[in-house]
């Protein structure tokens, strides 16, 4: 008696879970949060994420087994499954298009800086639990990724690799409060450190601490990475962000400013790991043309113009 009741409860629970999944996927359409689960199943995933997907499958199988008795339900389930599969294929195609765009732009940025990159994709992300801002990407040591390599996307600096396994790697994001990046102001030699501030109420800012108090900071100034010794963990010249607010620091030896990162950390997807840095510091040549979204001839022109101006720049070492 107790057993059947228990089993019925389990059955009901699992069926309800299946229905919730179907509803969410259905209503979400292309932006369905379950897209991510589809990726888990489809893409090349590493570590526990892959195991997790394998563990989710038995639940689904269990539900379908339990529901086999009435044939009508089985038929509905089969149709729903097929419906979901087709929907997923449709959505996946649209997503592949977006990814291809992002990948193309990212490779363009890498090309401007002379970085050799291994493209990867974010497969898991940790927000506040643990207060760390880290992401898992689907490339690892088998692809040449090692700890302390720079990670960027089509917009700018994303972070650095902290740990790498065979087929996945953990990236500490620029916004992680424990990360510190040597930074330089555009068009000058003033250097400082950019530190993450964690994920606040939706505003992703980083804090720039400039070591030279005589320099005047103004909103709109742009920041690139200064480059560490041997390019690890950060290669030189990667766009970091734009100064948004200068903080008053009376009586201090450093200057503080809040900057908005170029990379959009709320939609991190396609990233590139710099496996080999440029031979020469690209200086400001990787920065996007001011307020320009189109990436065509204007960009090539801008690159020529900027590299001409920054030609005297030599490889900058130190910092970190």
């Amino acid at each position, binding site marked *: 008696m*107790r*057993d059947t*009741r*228990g*089993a019925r*409860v*389990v059955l009901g*629970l699992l069926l309800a879970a299946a229905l919730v999944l179907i509803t969410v996927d259905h209503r979400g359409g292309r932006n369905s*949060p*379950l897209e*991510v*689960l589809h990726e*888990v199943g489809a893409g090349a995933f*590493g*570590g*526990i*994420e892959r195991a*997790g*997907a394998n*563990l*989710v499958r038995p*639940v689904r199988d269990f539900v379908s087994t339990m529901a086999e008795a009435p044939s009508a339900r089985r038929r509905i389930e089969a149709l729903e499954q097929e419906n979901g599969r087709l929907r997923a294929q449709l959505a996946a195609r649209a997503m592949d298009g977006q990814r291809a765009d992002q990948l193309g732009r990212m490779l363009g940025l890498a090309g401007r800086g002379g970085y050799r990159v291994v493209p990867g994709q*974010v*497969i*898991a*992300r*940790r*927000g*506040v*639990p*643990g*207060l*760390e801002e*880290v*992401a*898992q990407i689907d490339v690892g040591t088998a692809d040449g990724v090692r700890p302390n390599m720079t990670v960027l996307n089509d917009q700018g600096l994303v972070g650095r690799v*902290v*740990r790498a*396994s065979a087929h*996945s790697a*953990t*990236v*500490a994001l620029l916004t*992680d*409060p*424990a990360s510190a990046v040597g930074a330089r102001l555009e068009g000058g030699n003033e250097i400082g450190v950019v530190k993450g*501030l*964690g*994920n*606040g*109420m*939706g*505003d992703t800012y980083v804090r720039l601490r400039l070591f030279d108090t005589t320099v005047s900071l103004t909103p709109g100034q742009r920041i690139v990475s200064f480059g560490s010794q041997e390019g690890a963990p950060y290669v030189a010249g990667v766009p970091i962000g734009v100064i948004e607010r200068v903080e008053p620091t009376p009586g201090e030896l450093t200057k503080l400013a809040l900057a908005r990162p170029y990379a959009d*950390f*709320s*939609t*991190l997807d396609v990233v590139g790991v710099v496996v080999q840095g440029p031979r020469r510091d690209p200086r400001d040549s990787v920065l996007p043309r001011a307020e320009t979204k189109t990436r065509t001839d204007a960009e090539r022109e801008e690159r020529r113009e900027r590299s001409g101006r920054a030609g005297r720049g030599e490889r900058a070492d130190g910092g970190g």
Partner: protein
Amino acid sequence: MADVVRGAVIVLAVVAALVTQVTVIGRFALPGGGPDLLVPVVVTLSFLRGARAGAVIGFVVGLAMDVLPPADHVIGQYALVMCLIGYFAGRARERAPGAALSCAVACAVAAPLLSAGLAALLGDPRAEQAVLVRSWIPLVAYNLVTVPVVVWVVGRALGTGRSRAVPMRVRGRA
């Protein structure tokens, strides 16, 4: 048999919560980081199982949170916090069986504080004051919203399946 099924459901639920946390909630990059599913899950399970089991559950879940990629903090940090949370939730059940929700709310407030305090003791730069002020309030707010929902759902799912010999008041009606 029912116990085996229930055990399997618990393990699956915890694994699902862990994977959902990093592959779904984490990737939304919600303002303030998004809700933490594991705290309410641990609170509820402990409340149903008592202090000793609660501590064990909390430890195991916390350890899983520590090793689940991506992670860049000291392993064991969450195992400790969750172990404490599990233990106190279990104690609360033994002392005041009717106080499921208030106990869950207390844990929702305490868990981020405990982990932040531990990080500070370990010299983690993430436990800096400026960061904490920005992170703690949204964290607690998210927890306060998710905890009652998860407590109710998990409590109902597991509490209903239990024999009447152990009356559970998690459902709000004994």
